[in-house]
């Protein structure tokens, strides 16, 4: 073991690492893209990407014009979920408003609404929803239904209608009501940004490390100095390790900065072990670096490498569950997330910050990250040797 360690840290490797450090340090653009860009992207994404549904614009046709109908309208529009977009005199006008985008939803109260209520009969109000965005439509439908449900309960409580209190005998026959009592764990305030930023952190780590690494590897070939390196007594793995070391340290620095943004700009709670999170991040960076090296061994110029990463990154990021739940993907694509390092890091990040989970819950993700890194890393060493021919 000690022998191996000595071998790894021999003067050749040290000299190579020194050379890479000197090269990277002078790269201003790299420093910029590793310090400023992630902060900007994280804040922009965290604040801009929110699926929250509030202030749905509600247009109203009130054919009843009674205190009862106004009470219903007030209950809906005074909440945070709905906002009054205006009154219309006919259903056609309301339909036009919804299709022209002046309102997101419409409610039609029939003319006999108050009369039916006073006579203790059932009445039906119509609710139109612009369902172009399926997610928003589902959530606002939930809002509308639960609000009217509560309004109904309130109406029953009021003593204005004719009381049809059944006698005790029939009360026994009727079944009780189930009361669903939801409790939101880990994020009781339902802050949208926590989910997004923990996912985007993984996205950033993978995208940046693969991009930077492929650029650094290709640069040597473009300048024609690769042959010189390969001719030197250093072995292939030594060359690769030396190339990776400074990048890895820089990317770790980027991870620290991003975690600071998560903590201080978004207030993500760190319930679990921070060391676990850092270990996951380091593994994630390594797998990103190995993606970059593999891409670089397949491309002849920096432009080709960049175009290839253009090709690899969108599916990698959209099939990761970083921005949306994995269950929302088509069934046949869901198993593919096992191969995606972003998915594993997002699970680790959410598990160890929001949920306060430990290694017991997260070991499968660590194992898969390690496997991905090892497989891609050995692939790149093998390809690196081949590329000279």
């Amino acid at each position, binding site marked *: 073991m000690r022998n191996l360690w000595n071998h790894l840290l021999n003067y050749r490797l040290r000299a190579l690492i020194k050379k890479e450090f000197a090269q990277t340090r002078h790269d201003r653009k790299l420093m910029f893209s590793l310090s400023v860009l992630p902060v900007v992207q994280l804040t922009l994404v965290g604040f801009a990407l929110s699926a929250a549904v*509030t202030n749905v614009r509600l247009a109203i046709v009130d054919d009843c014009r009674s205190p009862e109908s106004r009470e219903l309208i007030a209950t809906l529009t005074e909440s945070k979920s709905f906002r009054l977009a205006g009154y219309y005199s006919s259903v056609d006008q309301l339909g036009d408003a919804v299709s022209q985008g002046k309102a997101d939803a419409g409610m039609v109260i029939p003319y006999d609404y108050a009369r039916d*209520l006073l006579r203790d009969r059932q*009445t039906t109000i119509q609710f139109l929803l612009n369902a*172009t965005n399926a997610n928003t439509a589902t959530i606002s439908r939930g809002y509308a239904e639960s609000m009217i449900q509560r309004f109904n309960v309130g109406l029953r409580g009021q003593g204005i209608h004719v009381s049809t209190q059944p006698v005790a005998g029939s009360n026994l026959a009727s079944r009780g009501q189930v009361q669903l009592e*939801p409790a939101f764990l*880990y994020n009781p305030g339902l802050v949208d940004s926590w989910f997004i930023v923990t996912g985007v952190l993984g996205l950033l780590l993978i995208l940046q490390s693969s991009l930077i690494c492929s650029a650094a590897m290709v640069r040597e070939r473009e300048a024609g100095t690769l042959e010189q390196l390969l001719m030197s007594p250093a072995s292939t793995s030594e060359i690769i390790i030396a190339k990776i070391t400074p990048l890895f340290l820089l990317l770790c620095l980027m991870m620290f900065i991003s975690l600071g943004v998560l903590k201080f700009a978004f207030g993500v709670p760190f319930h679990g072990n921070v060391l676990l999170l850092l270990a996951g991040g380091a593994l994630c960076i390594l797998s990103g670096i190995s993606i970059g090296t593999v891409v670089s061994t397949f491309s002849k110029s920096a432009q080709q490498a960049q175009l290839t990463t253009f090709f690899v990154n969108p599916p990698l990021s959209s099939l990761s569950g970083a921005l*949306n739940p994995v269950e*929302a993907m088509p069934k046949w694509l869901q198993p593919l997330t096992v191969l995606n390092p972003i998915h594993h890091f997002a699970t680790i990040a959410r598990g160890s910050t929001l949920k306060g*989970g430990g290694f017991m819950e997260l070991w499968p993700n660590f194992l898969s990250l390690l496997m991905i890194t090892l497989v891609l890393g050995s692939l790149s060493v093998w390809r690196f040797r081949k590329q000279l021919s």
Partner: protein
Amino acid sequence: MRRIIAQMRKELTQIVRDWRTLALALALPMFLLVLMSSALSLTVNELPIVVQDFDGSSASNDFIDAFRASITLKVVPWPVDKSAEEALASNAGRAVLIIPSHFGRDMARGVNAPVQFLVDASDANTAKLVTAYAGQITTSYNQQGSGTQAGPIQTAIRLWFNPGLASKKFFGPGIFVLGLSMFPPLLAALAMAKEGELKTILQVYVSSIPAHEFLLGKIIAFMIVALAECLIMSLLLFTYFGLSFAGDPTPALIATVLYAFCVSAFGTMVGAVIPNQASALQAVAFGGFILVFLLSGMMFPIQNIPAGLRWISSLVWGRYYIEIVRDALLQGGGWPAVWYKVLIIGAIGALFYGIAWQGMRRMQVKA
């Protein structure tokens, strides 16, 4: 005019010769369209739900059956002796339904029976969806089961424009616009930056063609690429996505031509201002991808962006085109709904063209 056409033909020849990049630029958007539209959706199917039944009575089984019947939720077995939070921590389920031991007794007595529903809220949006679904199931279970009268007010909810709540129909047009805002400007910027890098721009300066005609020729060539891409992708929209024009198609058609102009002008402008291929590529990636992806309402509603950042989105050209395309394919609002958006796209395109013209002049000084 003759000069513009000649310039355009030269540009098209160059594009066609680099057939590998062209094929990539035409095929990649289709690939993205199919992949991302299915991958980006937020609405979920078969969300795993863990049920812990401490009662085991027929009433509790009845209630769980109501959850089993739902398409959006999938009941996952979980041993009673393991704690509910463990199921959430190990990602076995998105929520846990806990039925207490006296559930059946309470139901039979006609007393309200509370049932706990623990939701993993680390994903706030999905948490809201699960709660909404569970609430709907419970409500309908309460209504159908007993003789108790439902509330006096009934709601008849109608979903317009997308009654099946298919996310694909919402994301399809958005990704169509994303592809159109990414690839044609990428090619245009690379071509223009190459002229600066290889100094072939000097030959243009000594020729008789004025700067605005040179730019127009270039832009028209890339407009043709953009329109070809648009044609291929709209075929996909009409077949695979099952979309069709909901109303008057003319605003969308005119906007498409204007948008093709706008994105080609954007690419040419970037190439003229930044005569370096690698940096130009990054600038287009920022403008075409990050801005259109994040700030155009493609995935998440614009109203949710905090006011401090929201004004940026009114400068994002893709935003207006997404709204026009969605209107044409889903809502059918026609000219009264979108006329000013068509004008804005034209204005932004003209602005890019103007900046590119200025950039050309500065390039001349530098070269």
